[in-house]
């Protein structure tokens, strides 16, 4: 029961507790519901607020972004270690990098390398010291490599005391920087300029305090203090203090006050100082934005300039005076030849007034058509800045032409541009007339000279030819056993003819020498032989006279010498002849000495002393002059008066010298010195001795071409006397005909002949195929003109002999030339081939060594011959250089086989190709050469066979 009660109570308690709990839960549920309601509302509210907040945030962010984007500055954030965290888009425009390219990069990569270290240090310090904001400018590199100056403000951003990032606003300050630099440079430059200016400068502010003054200013005004210490000093009394330096002190002070009052620029005022110097003053007020801020004084010492200007002014006045009084007409034209200015004198010259001339075209008004070109050619030089002088005719107003010499020069403006020209005209009409007359006179003189020359040439032929016959005939008459009386007559005849001959020879020689037609020959001769012959000739002459002739020859002189023996002979004959002429009794002494021995030259001195009448001291200077005979009135000593002049000329020509010493009544000594070369040749028999004909000449054949019958006879007699076979041809044409028919050993060729002269005949013989193509031809020339002699060589003659000639002269020639062809061991074969092969050369080269010669011929035929066709190729290719070289190379091989003519043809090809190559001409030369070569081949082959035959 007790237990039931207990349980009842327990259940009751439990039920009550449950109800209580339910009630609590009910209350709590309601509270919960209400709380939920409120929460829901709250939530809605919150959502609204959040949404609104987000919107506001977005709006604000957008505004910020727009702000950042819209600024013209680069805004960026970097980490404290310097890496870009954010960059605005302006960077693209400013530096060319995109935002993405920069994020993550280190800022220093954008900095010009030399500035990196400094900049990094700067910002490291900023971070260390936590400076809130800094400004720095530096040069940065754009993406395209350009450099821009960046000025940036950097701010640090801190969170909880830690620097999290740095924000920078960067701006392109290049322009600013450039301007700043330029300004600084300008400022420095200006200051330096003013300080160092060669002018005294003083700058004062509006209260007349010194801002800047330079050393030169202090010097000018005698201020002892250094310029720097004057800065800031008051200048208001300075004029008063310095006025004593000026000539007009009161005026100086008053003027300064006036200038300061007016504040207007005044330049180049000149001030005279007490000490004589001249100063030039500039006053320049300084205004800044319309406000007066001071002024600048500039003083320049122009004393020198002033003096020079004074001088110039005076000299200008002087020259103007001179110009006006001179006979020079000045004319200025512009580039179109339009007259700009005509000076008084020019107006007078042409008879126009200044007004009539100005503005006119000068060529139209003053020039005849004839001289337009002269003017234009000269005026064309002016634009190039070149001056020139020329002569031409201009027309006066009245139409009369006058001759003027014009000196034209370009006129330039201050920039050096040619604006026209100035012509100085000088009237030379009178001179021109004179010139014209002079030219006329000259022409007359020239004609006269020409006539004289012609006359001399004619003389040469017309007088010498008969004279030759007279002398020649006289020689022959001596051989006809004359009676004693006849012998005497012949002697007189001979002496007179000889004198006449020498007289004409002298005249002609002088003419030749003066015309420069004498050539110094150089061939070997026996000097001692020549001297001894001369000695003997005069000894014979002096027989029966009380005059002794001695000759002493230096023992060192012997053998053959190379030089002009004919000239030497003439000189000796003249000088010894003179001595003989003027010496009545006593001695003539000839001394020959070897004076000097140089490398190749021997100087030999000849001294001819006599005991004759002597020469007066006052005439000594004249004796070598033409036509100056010391004793012209003495008929006994008649002469041309040319002997000594010719002698001197001949010595000069050879490079020698002559001097004379004399004492009147005691005697005269002529000394001359001549250069010779030593010759290796042996002495040949003296041609001046009368010779017997050697057996060598017997059996040889001579062709004589001579139209003059007397000469024909003279030569015939001589040749007959020597038993030499000959044929006479009475003109050139006949001579050629005869030469074509048979071979001769020598041809004697007169020059002046009818039908065909000696030159033409020689050319024909030398250049046509005939047996005498290589026969020696010796000219017989009556003309003493040396130019004719040189012509003989040119046409292919071997030598010449001047008519009249002595018998042994002719003999010498015959021996010299015939001897050569006779050296050939086999005359029969030789005569067959002489025309084609140069046996003289072959003999020289090979002598008797036939096998050597055979080798050479063999080589030529089998090897060298193959090289010739290349010449044709080179001509077609116009390769002149190679052609010249090939011809040069092949040329000597032709000489080696005796083809002398072909050798010369190749030489012509060589020189033509080198100097003046023309295809047509070279082709012709080669065609000729080729023909000759083709013709020569069988001859060479035949010669080779002969050479290979065993010697008999």
């Amino acid at each position, binding site marked *: 029961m007790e237990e039931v009660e*207990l349980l009842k109570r*327990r259940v009751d*308690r439990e039920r009550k507790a*449950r109800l209580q*709990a339910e009630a*609590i839960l009910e209350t*709590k549920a309601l509270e919960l519901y209400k709380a939920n309601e409120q929460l829901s509302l709250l939530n809605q509210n919150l959502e609204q607020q959040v949404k609104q907040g987000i919107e506001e945030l977005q709006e604000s962010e957008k505004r910020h972004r727009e702000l950042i984007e819209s600024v013209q500055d680069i805004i960026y954030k970097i980490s404290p270690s310097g890496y870009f965290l954010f960059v605005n888009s302006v960077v693209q425009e400013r530096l060319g990098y995109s935002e993405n390219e920069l994020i993550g990069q280190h800022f220093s990569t954008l900095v010009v390398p030399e500035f990196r270290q400094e900049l990094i240090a700067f910002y490291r310090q900023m971070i260390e010291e936590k400076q809130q904001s800094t400004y720095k400018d530096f040069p940065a590199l754009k993406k395209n490599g350009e450099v821009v100056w960046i000025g940036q403000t950097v701010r640090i951003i801190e969170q909880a005391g830690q620097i999290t990032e740095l924000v920078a606003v960067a701006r392109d300050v290049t322009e600013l920087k450039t301007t700043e630099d330029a300004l600084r440079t300008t400022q420095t430059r200006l200051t330096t300029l003013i300080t160092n200016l060669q002018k005294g400068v003083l700058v004062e502010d509006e209260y007349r305090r010194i801002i800047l003054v330079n050393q030169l200013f202090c010097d000018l005004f005698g201020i002892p203090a250094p310029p720097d210490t004057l800065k800031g000093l008051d200048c208001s009394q300075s004029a008063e203090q310095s006025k004593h330096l000026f000539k007009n002190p009161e005026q100086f002070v008053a003027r300064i006050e006036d200038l300061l009052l007016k504040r207007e620029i005044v330049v180049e005022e000149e001030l005279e100082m007490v000490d004589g110097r001249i100063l030039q003053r500039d006053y320049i007020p300084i205004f800044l934005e319309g406000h007066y801020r001071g002024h600048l004084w500039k003083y320049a010492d122009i004393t020198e300039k002033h003096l020079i200007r004074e001088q110039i002014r005076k000299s200008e006045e002087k020259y103007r005076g001179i110009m006006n009084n001179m006979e020079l007409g000045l004319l200025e034209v512009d580039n179109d030849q339009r007259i700009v200015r005509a000076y008084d004198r020019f107006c007078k010259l042409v008879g126009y007034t200044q007004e009539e001339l100005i503005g006119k075209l000068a060529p139209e008004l003053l020039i005849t058509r004839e001289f337009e070109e002269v003017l234009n050619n000269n005026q064309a030089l002016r634009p190039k800045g070149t001056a020139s002088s020329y002569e031409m005719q201009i027309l006066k107003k009245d139409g009369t032409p006058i001759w003027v010499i014009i000196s034209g020069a370009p006129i330039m403006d201050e920039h050096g541009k040619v604006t026209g020209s100035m012509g100085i005209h000088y009237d030379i009409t009178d001179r021109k007339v004179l010139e014209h007359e002079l030219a006329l006179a000259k022409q007359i003189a020239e004609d006269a000279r020409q006539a004289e020359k012609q006359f001399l040439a004619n003389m040469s032929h017309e007088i010498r030819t008969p004279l030759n016959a007279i002398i020649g005939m006289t020689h022959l008459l001596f051989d006809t056993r004359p009676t004693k009386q006849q012998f005497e007559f012949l002697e007189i005849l001979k002496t007179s003819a000889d004198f006449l001959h020498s007289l004409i020879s002298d005249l002609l020689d002088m003419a030749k020498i003066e015309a420069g037609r004498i050539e110094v020959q150089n061939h070997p001769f026996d000097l001692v032989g020549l001297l001894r012959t001369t000695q003997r000739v005069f000894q014979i002459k002096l027989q029966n006279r009380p005059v002794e002739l001695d000759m002493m020859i230096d023992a060192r002189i012997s053998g053959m010498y190379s030089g002009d023996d004919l000239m030497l002979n003439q000189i000796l004959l003249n000088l010894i002849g003179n001595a003989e002429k003027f010496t009545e009794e006593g001695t003539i002494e000839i001394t020959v000495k070897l004076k000097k021995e140089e490398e190749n030259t021997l100087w030999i001195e000849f001294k001819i002393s006599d005991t004759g009448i002597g020469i007066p001291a006052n005439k000594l200077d004249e004796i070598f002059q033409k036509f100056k005979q010391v004793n012209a009135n003495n008929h006994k000593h008649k002469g041309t008066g040319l002997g000594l002049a010719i002698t001197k000329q001949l010595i000069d020509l050879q490079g020698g010298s002559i001097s004379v010493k004399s004492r009147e009544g005691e005697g005269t000594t002529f000394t001359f010195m001549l250069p010779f070369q030593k010759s290796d040749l042996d002495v040949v028999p003296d041609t001046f001795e009368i010779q017997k004909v050697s057996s060598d000449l017997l059996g040889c054949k001579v062709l004589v071409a001579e139209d003059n019958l007397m000469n024909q006879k003279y030569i015939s007699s001589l040749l007959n006397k020597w038993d030499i076979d000959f044929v006479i041809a009475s003109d050139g044409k006949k001579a050629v005909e005869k030469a074509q028919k048979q071979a001769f050993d020598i041809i004697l060729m007169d020059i002046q002949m009818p039908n065909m002269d000696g030159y033409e005949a020689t050319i024909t013989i030398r250049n046509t195929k005939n047996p005498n193509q290589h026969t020696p031809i010796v000219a017989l020339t009556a003309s003493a003109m040396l130019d004719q002699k040189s012509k003989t060589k040119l046409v292919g003659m071997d030598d010449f002999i001047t008519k009249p000639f002595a018998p042994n002269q002719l003999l010498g020639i015959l021996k010299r030339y015939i001897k050569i062809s006779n050296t050939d061991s086999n005359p029969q074969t030789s005569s067959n081939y002489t025309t084609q092969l140069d046996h003289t050369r072959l003999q020289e080269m090979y002598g008797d060594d036939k096998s050597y010669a055979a080798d050479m011929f063999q080589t030529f035929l089998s090897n060298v011959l193959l090289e010739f066709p290349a010449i044709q190729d080179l001509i077609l290719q116009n390769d002149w250089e190679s052609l010249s070289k090939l011809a040069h190379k092949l040329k000597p091989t032709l000489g080696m086989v005796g083809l002398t003519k072909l050798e010369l043809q190749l030489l012509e090809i060589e020189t033509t190709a080198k100097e003046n190559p023309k295809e047509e001409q070279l082709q012709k030369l080669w065609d000729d050469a080729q023909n000759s070569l083709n013709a020569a081949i069988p001859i060479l082959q035949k010669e080779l066979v002969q050479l290979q035959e065993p010697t008999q």
Partner: protein
Amino acid sequence: MKGIVFTEFFEMVEEEFGYEMVDTLVETTVLPSGGIYTAVGTYDYNEIISLVANLSQRTQIPVPALLRAYGKYLFKSFTRIYNRFLQSPSDAFTFLGSIHNYIHVEVQKLYPDAELPHFDIERVDDNTLIMNYYSKRKMADFAHGLIEGTLLHFSENATITQQAIKEDGSHVQFVIVK
């Protein structure tokens, strides 16, 4: 005082002494609530003091021992009911350390009218924890029991020294040494 303290107290009394003792205590103790408790309700704390004093008198077991025993019992109940609070701490000291800053904070949120004691906790070293207990209720013995329950739950052995700093028991220091 939360209703659970009363309901669990009656559970423990019923377990130890039978429902008769529960009935006796309800019948013989002056209780404004009439001895009817639900875990979700809130009741005057003096009623539990009266009930404990009544039990002590009837069982001759001193009040502090009863409170300690009840604390120990209650923690066990808590481990059953509020298991979620006990899952993350790995040891007793960690759990005890989190009482004031975590558990009491959460309890206050759930029961705004709850009057909770204040704890200052000092971790001297790995093996020593000092807990200072402050409460007007002066129920340090009950706390002692709860600490013992805690150690039991984490199967840890430690000596708990309880020393009243204030004589009235409003500030008591526990030194727990493992």
